[in-house]
């Protein structure tokens, strides 16, 4: 306990420097600003805003990125409530009752409850990260190459199950992502692999290039394909603060949502996406009058929103302690950390103690800032929602181009991004989801490295992955999950869950 307090004290003393507070504030502001634009999800937001952090030292950059992330998340909830367009998978649930509340003239209360329950969940999740971070790092040190490899297999297996759409197509995307990660110079032998002799590819496909192509450019193309019917809530937003009665009704859902979200967020393979769904289902099941759900039940906003935010934050745990990103957003964080010369993994906490704890502390500060800046600024966000897409996409386009160019200052990167934009558009047209591809891509290199190490250590004995108990358990779990996912009965239930 004393250790935990010491760590948090270190964190808060780092985060409370004027510069870091300012970075956190700017991150939250621009994150919300971009995240609130319909059709721009958190992944595109972070990819686009990455260059903003280049000139900042690593701790500040990471704090700012985390701010951007929360801002983008919150922006997604705002669009979900006001115009019924979820920014990403996790705010789908918020559209159900949030938008209904908005249509009944309670938009302000819905936004207020979303912000307050997110803040509460964020506070709890910060403590969870601080408490679990250190012990989990010790677990990580017990992991050999074989265990790491198996853990990543499990993570990818979970990602397949939790991806939207067809299971087999999600598997295909992971494999293509892994395949893409092998492009470039082989680290062990120095041999160039599948680079077509292009110098731009000799270091491999840049993560930012791939992410911006698949999520920046391809998303513009996707949006242009479906001219949206945007129904911005007309009339007044109404009061923001929930009444005492509302608060009383929300306490239970918020507590349960936070618990569910925080627990699921720790899972490798994007467990966080399950949180809001689980919370909504639970609240609907135990409600006195389940019929209210879907017609503007405040519990249906409070529970999922707290689960969403708790999961979004505990998703940092596998990244910071094991170095394994659990979802596409965290994969972007890996890219950002690497640009700043920090290799994610168990050593972060010891080598970069002030960075680690500073970021944990700034998570809480960021959540507080979101609450403070968003409630008064909601009027501004509503106005932003009315910007027509025909003006928005050229602006997004130019930001993406400048962002990509700035990563390495190479024009070839912009063209390569255009290629992946076209690739992403083809994937979309064929019914593939690009998020698992990005996750596979990020884990690919680490997986290959650990696989090769494990085989060298075991002298070429492939059985090493099932002979070592921890590794065997992880692989068995992965196998069970995949088998369940392809079973017809489970398939139907999964589809139903995503439709709800």
């Amino acid at each position, binding site marked *: 306990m004393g250790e935990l307090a010491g760590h948090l004290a270190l964190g808060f003393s780092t985060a409370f420097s004027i510069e870091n507070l300012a970075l956190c504030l700017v991150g939250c502001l621009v994150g919300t600003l971009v995240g609130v634009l319909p059709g721009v999800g958190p992944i595109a937001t972070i990819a686009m805003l990455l260059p903003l952090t280049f000139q900042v030292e690593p701790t500040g950059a990471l704090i700012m990125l985390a701010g951007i992330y929360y801002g983008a998340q919150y922006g997604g909830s705002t669009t979900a409530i006001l115009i019924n367009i979820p920014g990403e998978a996790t705010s789908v649930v918020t559209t159900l009752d949030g938008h209904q509340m908005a249509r009944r003239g309670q938009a302000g209360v819905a936004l207020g409850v979303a912000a307050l329950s997110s803040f509460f969940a964020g506070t709890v999740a910060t403590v969870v990260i601080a408490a679990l971070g250190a012990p989990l790092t010790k677990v990580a040190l017990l992991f050999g190459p074989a265990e790491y490899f198996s853990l990543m297999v499990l993570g990818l297996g979970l990602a397949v199950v939790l991806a939207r759409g067809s299971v087999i197509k999600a598997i295909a995307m992971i494999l293509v992502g892994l395949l893409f990660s092998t492009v470039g110079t082989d680290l062990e032998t120095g041999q160039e692999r599948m680079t077509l002799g292009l110098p731009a590819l000799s270091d491999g496909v840049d993560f930012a290039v791939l992410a911006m192509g698949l999520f920046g450019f391809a998303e513009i193309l996707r949006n242009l394909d479906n*001219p949206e019917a945007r129904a911005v809530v007309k009339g007044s937003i109404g009061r923001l603060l929930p009444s005492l009665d509302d608060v009383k009704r929300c306490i239970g859902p918020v507590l349960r949502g936070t618990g569910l979200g925080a627990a699921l967020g720790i899972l490798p393979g994007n467990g966080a996406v399950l949180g809001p769904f689980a919370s909504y289902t639970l609240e609907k099941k135990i409600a006195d009058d389940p019929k209210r759900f879907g017609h503007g039940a405040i519990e249906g906003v409070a529970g999922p929103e707290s689960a969403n935010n708790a999961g979004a934050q505990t998703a940092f745990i596998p990244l910071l302690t094991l170095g394994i990103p659990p979802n596409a957003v965290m994969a972007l964080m890996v890219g950002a950390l690497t640009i700043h010369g920090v290799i994610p993994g168990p050593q972060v906490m010891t080598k970069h103690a002030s960075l680690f704890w500073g970021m944990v502390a700034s998570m809480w500060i960021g959540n507080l800032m979101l609450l403070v800046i968003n409630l008064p600024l909601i009027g501004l966000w509503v106005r932003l929602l009315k910007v027509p897409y025909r003006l928005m996409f050229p602006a997004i386009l*130019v930001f993406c*181009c400048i962002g990509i160019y700035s990563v390495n200052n190479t*024009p070839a990167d912009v063209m390569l991004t255009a*290629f992946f934009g076209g690739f992403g558009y083809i994937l979309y*047209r064929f019914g*593939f989801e690009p998020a698992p591809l990005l996750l596979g891509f990020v884990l690919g290199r680490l997986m290959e490295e650990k696989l090769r190490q494990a085989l060298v250590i075991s002298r070429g004995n492939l059985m090493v992955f099932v002979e070592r108990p921890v590794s065997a358990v992880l692989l068995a779990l992965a196998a069970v999950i995949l088998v369940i996912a392809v079973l017809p009965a489970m398939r139907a239930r999964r589809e139903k869950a995503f439709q709800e």
Partner: protein
Amino acid sequence: MIKSPQDAAAGAFLLAIAGIALWLGADLPVGTVRQLGPGMFPRVLAILVGVVGVMIVIDAFLQSGEGLERWPLRAPLFILGAAIAFGFAVRPLGLIVAAPLVMLVGAFASPETRIREVLIFGGVMTVFCVGLFKYALGLPIPVAPWLIGY
């Protein structure tokens, strides 16, 4: 015959990816199990992608699914073309030309675009981008090398 044209095409697309990867990686040494070579991981993955592709194609014959619509070419052409134009223009001509260029070319992707609106908005955004990225953030991106030398 084919019950899900979209899936059939998707599977064929995966097969093409697998084929290209196998072809590009053909001369990479595979190594031994004890000491994996640089070619092993990519080759195994390419084969797996191909296997999944075949499975999706087979599935397309068995289960009905979505059809293939006509692909609109306008948006991809202008959006991706705009980005490539930016890549060519940014070094020699600088942001002051590349930024309005990418916005103007890109804007043609949507039939709703109004030319005068884009011209004004493009000008405003260019000033904003130069101010933000060059002066506020200090990124080493050329502004107008032919005019002011950087």
